[in-house]
């Protein structure tokens, strides 16, 4: 192999623009790993080592049984020092496994950790060509040759460190958001909680009792809500929404819109005389239309913060300019109809998304006749009717006539496990909440008959099977295995007849009920959709946020510094939401405790001389890393925000001016690998010249 003249070059600069490609004939060391028999069982590692040693630039080649072990690593360090190795090639497993290990190793030997190149002769060679040993060996030889060629062109790179703001933003004030906020605050970090409703509490505040123990939901949640509101480290921004998020991990710039309550929070004491005075009555969203509230209201008695809000849509003053009864009644002059929305700018280090769920709404004119029949209600509506502070004071009544229902049917899997409506997933909680509600109803009124129409009963958690057993043994709740096919309403009594096949009896049954409860499934919330768009979070096909790795990274997202917790990530019950919230808090705390975060230097950079400011990279980047800036020389150029760049290479590959290079994946490096594989001699700078000419 021809030896190019050694060239002096500055180590940190991107050298692909230099006339001769910048190659200096560095000293390369090759380490071939046996990986026990994983590689050596198929590839003849001895042969590979021998051939590697004969390659130009290679000063030493070694074979090792387990290169990642202490022994193996010690050998690498020794060889580097002994032979003055400047570039290291490790031919072993996938870099996804041990690249950090070997980077660390060569750093210990005094080399820049980015002067390492790993060649995968395991996952991409021995593991897939197990039946063709000779061919596998040949392939390994060629891979190593390519690797050496690239390694010779590697540049040393420095990882950057950015400081991390020790504060966190929690979006969503349900049980998951509250738990995460409290955990972070107790660790000593500043927390901003943004909740779009006038009060925190989320869906858990609407529930009656929780399964499997029957704890009253608001009774266990309210103390946490109050603790949050009083915590010195937490700033609660309720009735607010996140509008914009810029920046990267450790340095997020968040714009929050505080919607106008038309009531000054500092002056309002929550006494309620304004609501007494207000003449307007509207359906209460918290009671899902079963109860009423005034135009000035708190959503429920245990609201946090306990401050009144004016519903602009229904307030008479906004419509006609008249009526200031509430303002006149207020002793503290807290009401101000002229209030405007406020923009709050925050700087935070990490973000936790806990925007929860909504329940599935059945179709109009659908099989279950939810919209047509009064006595067909959803599971969440049942919770409100059973709740002691609900619209009926906890007495379960039929919506049509207010009488006590004696025969109740639960229909499971409504809006879940249904390919036809594109909701093929199981909502996980409906089996248990139906069983739990059945038990509550039987406790209140022992003379009720309850039938549950199910497809499967999923009672998987701690105490779940026991409750399922109890509800059949103690309360004689009937379980009918079949999906209801037809619901018919009697026009006078408003009783509902359900026709379903009892699949275990192999007979079609028709039964009449006073009340039908649809156990509706969980769907992604509107809040999730909007924060997802703002941040650019990906979702899984069911619409919930995608975790970084389904098994091993359950609370992180693809965006560094953004974590997800609770039902925003997928349907789950309260214990799981709380556990995930604690996990998210702990994950978010890690960079904040470390006070700094290392940004990998394998990023893209723009040569501003070549860039014409077309903006294609800005459009294509999945991470929002490039931005167009006006430069001092004049004109717009693209510039990559390194902290956001993940080094995926999309911009570099698509730049029509070839102005963008990805470190460690320069055109020159890649072409050298190709030429090495093809056995062509790569003369000085030939690779780079070809790259510039745009040869594909």
């Amino acid at each position, binding site marked *: 192999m021809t030896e190019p003249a050694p060239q002096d070059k500055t180590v940190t600069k991107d050298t692909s623009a230099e006339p001769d490609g910048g190659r200096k004939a560095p000293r390369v060391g090759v380490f071939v790993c046996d990986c026990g028999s994983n590689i050596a069982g198929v590839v003849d590692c001895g042969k590979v080592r021998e051939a590697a040693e004969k390659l130009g630039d290679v000063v030493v080649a070694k074979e090792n049984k387990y290169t990642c072990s202490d022994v193996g690593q010690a050998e690498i360090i020794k060889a580097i020092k002994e032979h003055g190795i400047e570039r290291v090639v490790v031919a072993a497993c996938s870099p996804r496994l041990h690249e950090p290990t070997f980077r660390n190793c060569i750093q210990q030997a005094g080399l820049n950790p980015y002067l390492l190149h790993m060649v995968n002769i395991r996952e991409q060679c021995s593991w897939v060509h197990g039946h063709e040993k000779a061919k596998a060996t040949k392939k390994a030889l060629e891979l190593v040759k390519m690797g050496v060629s690239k390694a010779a062109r590697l540049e040393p790179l420095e990882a950057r460190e950015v400081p991390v703001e020790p504060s966190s933003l929690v979006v969503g004030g349900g049980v998951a958001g509250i738990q995460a906020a409290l955990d972070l605050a107790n660790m000593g970090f500043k927390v901003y909680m943004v909740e779009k409703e006038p009060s925190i509490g989320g869906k858990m505040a609407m529930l009656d009792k929780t399964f499997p123990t029957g704890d009253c939901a608001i009774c266990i949640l309210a103390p946490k809500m109050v603790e949050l509101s009083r915590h010195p480290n937490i700033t609660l921004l309720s009735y607010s929404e996140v509008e914009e998020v810029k920046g990267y991990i450790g340095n997020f710039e968040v714009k929050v819109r505080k919607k106008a309550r038309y009531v000054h929070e500092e002056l309002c004491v929550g006494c309620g005389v304004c609501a007494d005075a207000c003449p307007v009555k509207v359906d209460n969203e918290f009671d899902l239309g079963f109860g009423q509230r005034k135009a000035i209201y708190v959503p429920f008695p245990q609201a946090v913060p306990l401050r009144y809000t004016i519903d602009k849509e229904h307030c008479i003053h906004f419509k006609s300019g008249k009526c200031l009864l509430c303002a006149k009644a207020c002793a503290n002059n807290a009401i101000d109809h002229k209030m405007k929305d406020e923009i709050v700018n925050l700087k935070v280090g990490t973000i936790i998304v806990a925007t929860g769920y909504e329940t599935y709404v059945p179709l109009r004119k659908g099989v279950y006749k939810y919209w047509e029949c009064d006595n067909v209600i959803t599971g969440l509506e049942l919770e409100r009717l059973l709740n002691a502070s609900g619209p009926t004071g906890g007495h379960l009544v039929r919506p049509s006539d207010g009488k006590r229902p004696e025969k109740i049917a639960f229909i499971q899997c409504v809006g879940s*496990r249904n*390919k036809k409506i594109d909701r093929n997933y199981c909502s996980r909680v409906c089996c248990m909440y139906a069983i739990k509600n059945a038990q509550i109803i039987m406790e209140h009124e022992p003379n009720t008959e309850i039938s549950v129409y199910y497809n499967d009963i999923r009672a998987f958690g701690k105490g779940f099977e026991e409750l399922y057993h109890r509800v059949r043994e103690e309360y004689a709740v009937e379980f009918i*295995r079949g*999906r209801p*096919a037809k619901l018919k309403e009697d026009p006078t009594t408003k009783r509902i007849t359900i026709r*379903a*096949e009892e*699949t275990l009896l192999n007979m*079609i049954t028709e039964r009449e009920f006073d009340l039908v409860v649809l156990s509706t499934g969980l769907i992604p919330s509107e809040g999730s959709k909007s924060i997802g768009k703002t941040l650019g979070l990906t979702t899984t096909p069911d619409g919930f946020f995608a975790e970084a790795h389904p098994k091993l990274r359950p609370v992180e997202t693809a965006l560094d510094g953004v974590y997800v917790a609770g039902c925003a990530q997928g349907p789950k019950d309260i214990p799981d939401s709380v556990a995930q919230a604690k996990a998210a808090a702990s994950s978010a705390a890690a960079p904040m405790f470390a006070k700094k975060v290392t940004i990998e230097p394998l990023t893209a950079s723009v040569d501003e001389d070549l860039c014409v400011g077309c903006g294609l990279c800005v459009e294509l980047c999945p991470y929002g890393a490039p931005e167009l800036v006006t430069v001092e020389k004049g004109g717009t150029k693209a510039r990559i925000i390194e902290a956001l760049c993940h080094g995926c290479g999309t911009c570099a590959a698509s730049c029509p001016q070839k102005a963008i290079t990805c470190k460690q994946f320069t055109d020159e490096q890649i072409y050298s690998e190709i030429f090495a594989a093809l056995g062509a001699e790569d003369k000085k700078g030939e690779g780079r010249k070809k790259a510039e000419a745009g040869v594909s």
Partner: protein
Amino acid sequence: MAEVEKVFISGLHEELAEDRVINEKDLDPEFAKEIRKYGGKNVMTCLQCGNCTGVCPISLKIDYKTRNIIKCCQFGLKKYTLGTRWVCATCYRCYEHCPADLNPAEVMIALRHIAVREGIVPPFVKIAATNLVKYGQSVKPDPEIDKIRVELGLKPVHADQERLTAVVREIQTLVHATKYDKLIGIQEEVKL
């Protein structure tokens, strides 16, 4: 009361000789694949919820249960599906309501395909096919109706005999090309 006695008194010996168990020799492992071949989508994903039976107008009247047929197809119990294949009205309500996006009506169609290929051809199929290759229509023309047609001012059904012959010949060619005539057993009618 009398029914119960009947079961337990007569013919007991022979009935007790063999265990009432379904094992491999009763099952046909290729049955589900055969169904898929003839257009009945993957029956293996059926979760047996029974919604199809609930909406089926036929299941309401007789012992046949749509869901049961799908289970037999999943399991490979071919002989249990006999006797049920020709009662489906193909109203497609089952497909409309199925949460697993299966089409039980199409599975019935697949079962009919299998039946016909095993030589089981119901008389009404033969009659309709015969009418088709003779008159170009599945319903046999009625001279009385033809009279009424003329009274109303319409042309009789086969006014143009030449046209009819050409059409019938085309149909016979097609039916013969797919070997349908052999399948249904109407070879004598196809005079090419």
